Every structure is written in C-alpha cells, then in structure tokens.
C-alpha cells in the first residue's frame, strides 16, 4: 500500500502540469501533491527499533491522520517531521524526510527555522506562563517577523482570528494565557503555532484533553486551516480521523500498514489488520 501511494505521488511530481493523466486516474486514489515526503524511515530508541521502513507523503493543503494502537510509532513518526526526536537521547533517525524537496535531516539545516516552518501542537495545551498576547507574539518576535509594534499586533490578531479565538479573548489580551479554558488554551497554542507562518502543522492528539464542544471547535478549525496549511494529526479517536482528514495512515508495531483516502480506510480498508483495528477487533 505504501509503495502504491508513493509511486502515485512520484508520478505526479515528475509530470506536473498538462502531462498528468488525471482523466484515467480514479479521483479517490489520487493523492494531492506532496509537501512532505518520507522514504524508508527507520527510527531507533537505543537498541530498540520503533519504526520500520516507513514511506508516506503528507499531501499539500490537506489533513493526513495517523492512527494506530499505543506504541505503534505514529507519534514517533510525527516527531521525525520537525526533528522533535533530536531532543530524545539515544534516538536515531534513518531514511529520507524532505520538506518541499529539502532534506530535513541535512546537517546544514537550521533546526529552529525548520520548526518555524513545521509547527507543532501537543496533546495537552501548554501555553507559556505569559499573557495571551505574549504567547502569540513570542514566535514572530524571536524569528524577527515583525519590524514594529503595529506589525506585531497585526500578526497576533490575525493568528488569533485564524485560530477562531480572537472574538473570545479580544478584551483580555493581556491576561494570562493559562487562565483560559482547556479548549481556548489549545486554540491559543494553535494561534501560537500559526503566528510564525508555518507551512506544515503537526498535531499530536490535540483534542484528547478536551471536552466534546472544545473538540468540535478544534476540528472545525482544522478544517478551515487546511485551506492554507498542510496538517498531519495523530489521533486515538477514529471518528475524529474520519471527520477531519482526507487521507489516513494506519501504523502497527512500527510498520505503516496501510495509507489511503480516509473514506476507504474507514469503510472498506484493504488490509485485514486495518480492518481489525478500525472495527475494534484487535488483539
């Protein structure tokens, strides 16, 4: 399955423009152009191998969901995409991961700049112990994205708007971010991530600490964000993966078992392991 997905994308990249035989490719099977490509990714934690030859593409301006049981390697893989695994001692990543064709693991690459291009939202909302405004302004400040105060304010307001939070916090921008509700804090973290104009946003179970209403708001937000960003999300909720993503990848025991259009994965998956997992018959 992985190979099929990979070859489709390779074909499309090579023959961009009028030469793509779009008419003869079923719409469902066509993956959009890839923003991030991963080939033969192997990850080791010390002696233990956590991922085996993972090949997957993250398509541009769409949402890909990574699903699988705990310990299957989905979060490990997500963290490879912006080198968050660098901070874990004994973690070794092999294989090719490219962002817009550029090797993410190139020693010359500036990791701080990479993480601005590939933002991340975590399971538990983790705002800085600063004001709402400062939380969002921090990134643009350290990356020098604003030349003056007005520009900075503009970035903060736009980011809060994009994260669907501005209306709720516009009268208390200088109050602590930690004083917001869980769902608002998570949207603040999303605003903080998009303030530095990333290309890709990684989300590691962004709703698992939230109530259903806050979850619905985040899901709605993810759907809006995909117009401008490429999003990869790890989730334990299959319904959530089915709702928010266009493509879904199923991991099991460090292998990428199946990757394909979300409708296919949840209505008629090809691999028996995927079928067993999504229907709740695992183990």
């Amino acid at each position, binding site marked *: 399955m992985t190979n099929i997905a990979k070859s489709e994308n390779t074909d499309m990249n090579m023959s961009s423009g009028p030469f793509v035989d779009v008419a003869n490719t079923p719409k469902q099977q066509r993956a959009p152009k890839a923003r991030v490509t991963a080939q033969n990714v192997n990850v080791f934690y010390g002696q233990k191998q956590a991922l085996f030859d993972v090949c997957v593409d993250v398509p541009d301006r769409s949402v890909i969901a990574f699903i699988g049981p705990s310990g299957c390697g989905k979060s490990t893989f997500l963290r490879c995409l912006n080198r968050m695994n660098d901070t874990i001692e004994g973690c070794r990543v092999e294989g090719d991961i490219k962002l817009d064709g550029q090797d993410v693991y190139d020693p010359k690459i500036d990791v701080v700049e990479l993480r601005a291009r590939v933002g991340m939202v975590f399971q538990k909302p983790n705002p800085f112990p600063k004001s709402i405004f400062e939380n969002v302004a921090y990134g643009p400040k350290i990356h020098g994205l604003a030349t003056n105060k007005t520009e900075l304010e503009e970035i903060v307001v736009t980011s809060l708007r994009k994260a669907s939070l501005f209306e709720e916090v516009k009268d208390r921008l200088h109050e602590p971010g930690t004083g917001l509700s869980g769902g608002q804090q998570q949207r603040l973290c999303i605003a903080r991530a998009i303030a530095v104009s990333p290309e890709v946003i990684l989300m590691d179970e962004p709703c698992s600490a939230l109530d259903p209403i806050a979850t619905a708001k985040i899901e709605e937000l993810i759907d809006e964000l995909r117009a401008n960003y490429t999003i990869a999300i790890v989730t334990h909720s*299959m*319904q959530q993966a*089915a709702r928010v993503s266009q493509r879904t990848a199923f991991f099991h025991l460090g292998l990428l078992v199946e990757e394909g259009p979300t409708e296919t994965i*949840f*209505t*008629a*998956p090809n691999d028996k392991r*995927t*079928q*067993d997992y*999504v*229907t*709740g*018959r*695992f*183990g």
Partner: protein
Amino acid sequence: MGGHIVASFDEELGAIDRLIREMGDLAQDMVSSATKSLLDNDVGLAQRVISDDLSMDDKQRQIDERAITLIAKRQPMAQDLRAVVGAIRMASDLERIGDLAKNISKRVNAVGSGVMQRKLSHSIDTMAGLVRAQLAGVIDNYVGRNADALVTLRADDEKIDVHYTAVFRELLTYMMEDPRNITPCTHLLFCAKNLERIGDHATNIAENAYYMMVGKQLPVHRPKIDETSISGDPR
C-alpha cells in the same frame, strides 16, 4: 475474523443479522404461499399471508431500532458499518417483498370464483417458481456470505424480466380469445407485475449484500440479455 473487544457489540450485530435471516425466510414463505393461494383460490392461505405481513413489518421496525441504537452507541466502522447500513436497506427491501406478496394474496377474494383455469395460470406458476428460486438464492448466499454467487444471481433477474414480458403477451392473447378471461387474466397480470417487482427487490438485496461483504459497489448497469429489447415491452 476475531471477536470484537466488546463482546456485546458482536451480540448486537448478530441479533440484527438473525432478524435479516428471519425476514428472508418469512419473505420466501410468503411469496410461495401468496402465489399458491391465488392459483388455488385458497382463502385460508391468503389470510395467513396477509397476517404474516404484520410480523414482517414488525421485524423491519426491530431492525431499524436496533441498527440506529447500535450506530449511536458503537459508531461502527468498515465491515461493521457496512453490515449495519446494509441491514437497514435489506430489511426495507424484504418488507416491500412482504407487501407485494400480501397484495397478491388480497386478490384471492377479488377473483372469487373457484380454482383458476390451469391453462391461464401455467406460465405464471413458472414465473413464481423463478422468483422464489431467485429470492431463496439471494438469501442463502447472504447467509453463506458468498459474494461471487450474488453477482451471478443479480444478472439472473433479467430472466425474470424476460419471463414477465412473455406472461404479459400470453395473458393478452387469452383475453383476446375470450372476453370472459379478462377478469381473471387482469388479476394474474397484476400478480405477474408484483412477482416481477419482488425479483427487483431480490436484486437490490443481492447488491446490498455484495457491498456489505466486499466493500465495493457493483456497477450500476448489470449485463443485459438481448431478448428483452422486444417492442411492446409493458414496463
């Protein structure tokens, strides 16, 4: 396929499947009895078919309720989702088959006088046999989860359609021969139409059962037999 982590989920799916089988058995019985009651002018048998239809309706409502509860409680995925949605659709087709069988039985009183002349009813008897076999085949292959056989059966519906056209012409001929045949032949014509519709519902069931098992829709147009393009086709 292994059992579900939540055992009661499998039980709930199993209960829905059992109801579909029961409806399938009942539908076969109703179709056989309905035609027999009309051809033999058996009022008692006709009454039984009419009361069986209430049981059929009740089972359909049970399936709907169970399926909706299961979706709300368990959010089924993949094959389970297909099984639940398939059950709702199949139950609706089976319920319609029950209605059509009931409609055939209701004609027994209307026809009224004695046993139908064998000459008139011979070809409709054959058609009823085809429809019964079609329905039985579809139900058996749903129960036995035999997807390939369902594809063949679906194509076989064409034979029923061809036979229906033949019955139509034959009954017209009898009516032209002797105007006293008009009343019984008209009833038989409605009966033939109902049987043809039952065949269509059996085809729908075959299509739904196939999707449920395989996860792919059969092509919209099934292969056609050439003989059907007869001028004066009553459909």
